């Protein structure tokens, strides 16, 4: 029960599961990195993801949120061959051969995206043998890659799809380390291998962490860093060394430096776990000194104090709706954080960092919206949906492929049985690249992981 969750707070959430940060709204294409080396050298463990078959589909009559701030009442969404091929009103023609699904009274959104998850690297059951999210043996582990820890059989993936409509997610290393390693961006599809989930052509993210966790973990062992100033000193020296490497011929393989060089090149996006406003401001200056950009601050509970700075630096804030108080640096968390950022014109992403929270990002976004409304900040439903779709995609560098319902984008689509910003609504159908992978009305369209076979509740509604 929850007293166990509290323990997790002191331990796992505060340290293990905890978030990372990434930066970057306008993201450079990942292709430039690939150009510098042979494919297998620069991109080992390539994605083997192939979309599953899907029928050309027309969703008609639903309220459609396009993910980029638009809303269409009685809209039509067409997809075929894995791509969105049309979005419009009831006047949009439906080509022959399309399966027509009546969405009257229902809602359509792009597939929901969680920018901060530990599914797979802190999977269920959460036993020590599965604790693969923090290489907490050194504060600097830029050489590790989260994809090497992801267990594709984590039952949490299916819950995220069935209850949260999650179609893409970023799996981050934990926050024990200042530099925690590369993230894995996944399509939320059942697969025998992690390569089969890897989001094609997604740039890598790079997890960094500020504040309490690194200094506690390493300070507690009598080694650097044990203070926030130690955090910065260790980080800055690493960046200076990385620049030397990046400016050289890069011939000697060095996994850590290759990742950092990728960040300096702009090909790998920094996701920086950072709670406090003052620390985020320091990190943005450190990034300028080192010559990289922060894509996103994760868990940025105090982002509302520096919305102007975040906007100016084009850094997203990936935040919870209302988490606070579980650790010192979260003490000033307020439910109006997202709304205040939105008002300031800064980029908002709602994230989970939690295998339960990922199942209701829509509800969390709705809470954040309502908190804003109560203080006089009105934010449209369509904009709020972008917090969990296109904004997340931008911060992860996959917005050219998913995150909104636009012609040519991946047909990652959720049909909700009601307003997705209501507690009473759930996904009815979820498509990934046009393939129907969850259907609340069809027990066979519910993924069951290997782990669950033959166990109590196999195939149960979860």
């Amino acid at each position, binding site marked *: *029960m*929850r007293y166990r969750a509290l323990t997790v707070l002191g331990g796992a959430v505060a340290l293990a599961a905890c978030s990372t940060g990434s930066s970057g709204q306008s993201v450079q294409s990942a292709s430039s990195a690939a150009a510098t080396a042979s494919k297998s050298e620069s991109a080992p463990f390539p994605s083997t993801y192939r979309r599953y078959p899907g029928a050309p589909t027309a969703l008609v009559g639903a309220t459609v949120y396009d993910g980029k701030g638009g809303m269409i009442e009685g809209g039509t969404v067409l997809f075929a061959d894995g791509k969105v091929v049309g979005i419009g009103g009831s006047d949009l023609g439906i080509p022959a051969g399309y399966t027509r699904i009546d969405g009257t009274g229902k809602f359509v959104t792009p597939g929901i995206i969680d920018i901060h998850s530990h599914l797979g690297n802190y999977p269920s059951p959460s036993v020590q043998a599965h604790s693969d999210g923090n290489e907490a043996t050194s504060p600097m582990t830029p050489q590790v890659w989260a994809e090497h820890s992801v267990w594709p059989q984590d039952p949490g993936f299916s819950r995220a799809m069935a209850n949260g409509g999650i179609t893409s997610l970023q799996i981050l290393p934990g926050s024990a380390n200042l530099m925690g390693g590369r993230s894995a961006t996944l399509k939320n599809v059942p697969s025998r291998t992690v390569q089969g989930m890897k989001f094609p052509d997604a740039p890598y993210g790079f997890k960094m962490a500020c504040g309490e966790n690194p200094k506690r973990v390493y300070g507690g062992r009598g080694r650097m860093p044990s203070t926030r100033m130690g955090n910065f000193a260790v980080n800055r020296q690493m960046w200076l060394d990385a620049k030397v490497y990046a400016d050289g011929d890069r011939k000697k393989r060095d996994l850590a430096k290759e990742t950092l060089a990728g960040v300096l090149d702009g090909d790998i996006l920094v996701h920086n776990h950072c709670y406090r406003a003052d620390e985020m401001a320091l990190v943005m200056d450190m990034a300028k000194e080192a010559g990289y950009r922060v894509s996103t601050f994760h868990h940025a509970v105090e982002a509302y104090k520096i919305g102007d700075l975040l906007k100016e630096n084009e850094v997203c804030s990936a935040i919870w709706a209302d988490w606070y108080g579980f650790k010192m640096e979260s003490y000033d968390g307020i439910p109006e954080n997202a709304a205040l950022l939105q008002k*300031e014109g800064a980029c908002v992403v709602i994230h989970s960092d939690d295998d339960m929270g990922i199942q209701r990002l829509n509800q969390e976004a709705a809470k954040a919206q309502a908190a804003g409304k109560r203080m006089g900040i009105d934010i449209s439903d369509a904009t709020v949906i972008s917090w969990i779709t296109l904004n997340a995609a931008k911060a992860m560098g996959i917005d050219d492929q998913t995150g909104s319902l636009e012609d040519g984008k991946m047909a990652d689509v959720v049909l909700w049985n009601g307003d997705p910003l209501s507690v009473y609504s759930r996904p009815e159908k979820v498509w990934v690249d046009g393939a129907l992978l969850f259907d609340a009305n069809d027990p066979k369209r519910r993924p069951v992981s290997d782990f669950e076979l033959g166990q109590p509740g196999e195939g149960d509604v979860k």
Partner: protein
Amino acid sequence: MMKRTLLAASAALAFASSAAAQDMAVTNATVATGDGSAPIENATVVVRGGQVVAAGSGVTVPAGMQTIDGSGRWVTPGIFMPLTDLGLWDVGAVSNSNDSRAGDARFNAALDASTAVNYASQHIAVSRGGGVTRATIALSPSDSIFAGQGAAIDLGADANAVVAPKVFQMVVLGEAGARIAGGTRVAAFAEFANALREAREVQSGRRVAEDSMLGRTDAEALGAVIDGQQKLYVHVERASDILSVLDLKKTYPRLDLVLVSVSEGWMVARQIAASGVPVIADAIDNLPSSFEQLGATQSNVGRMVDAGVKVAIGGLSGGITGPRTAPQFAGNLVSLSKLPRASGLTWGEALATITSIPAEISGFGGKYGVLKPGAAGDVVIWDGDPLEVSSAPVRVFIDGVEQPLDNHQTRLRERYRDLDESQLPKAYDW
């Protein structure tokens, strides 16, 4: 513009602390009494002398009574959150500020959570702002399978937080108990049996000190448990463990049991119902987080209720899914009723899981968590459907006393309403 709002906020804070119970009526509101029934439109709630005197439609407001127009509003009893940690911590990971675990204590069953309640805790204030008016609190078990004795509290902005001390004892069996007891559930059950034996010996004056593993104080505390005078909350998850706990009644017939958490309760719902033992459950935990939760499903609560088990939602604690998120969890149980093959609750049933039922299980049936004559005047007026994530309380009364809704968070909100520092630093915005 900021100054004006802030002044208003501090004024509200100042006067509320000295306020007394006021007689009042809320009219024209959608009233949900918390007893499991559906909400009633255009209804009235009357509170006099700190107690509810009427609630429903066709209620006449006594002449001269102060009336609040509840048009467009919803009215419910205050939320009752069982098994939380309000008042026991300030910052979860700052151990000096956190009284919720007694890992190095020399005592266990004797620990009395009521002795540490900080009525001025920010989390009490934040929860109060979320419509939570009553709770039971307990320590988390850490070095003993016995977590000690829990207390009932109210969340009023006054110094009298403790409603009743020692309302239950808590024991943890299953995986957590096994770890504490020495590595196996077998040891946890042995530990439990020995503790009750020693409690009985102390009661009857037959304690042999050199043959005792439990301190006298702890053994004394368990006396009320074996007599059935104090409820025993038992935390277990796995179906087989639930059955083992129900079997304890064969050995200790007077135990007044409450099952806690029971992720796999649905698998043995019939047996739980037959035992008459109520349940305080997680609302929608649906992951096989451990090998004792393999069957976890969001339909757990609905299926147990369908089988006739009395189920409260509880254990919401800390700053993440704290007590103020109880309505969201209850709302999720309603959403399940629309999903094919899932088991959810009706709206009225869902509200009852966070109001009247936890109050009943905690020993305060008819007094808290319900709007009916004779119940405490714990009344929350909401700006919309209270189980909907977009809704929030606009006024909160406890024992008929209107409560301040401000706290650290609301003050930060007002300070950072804008980022203007052209005249003075933010430190002067208060």
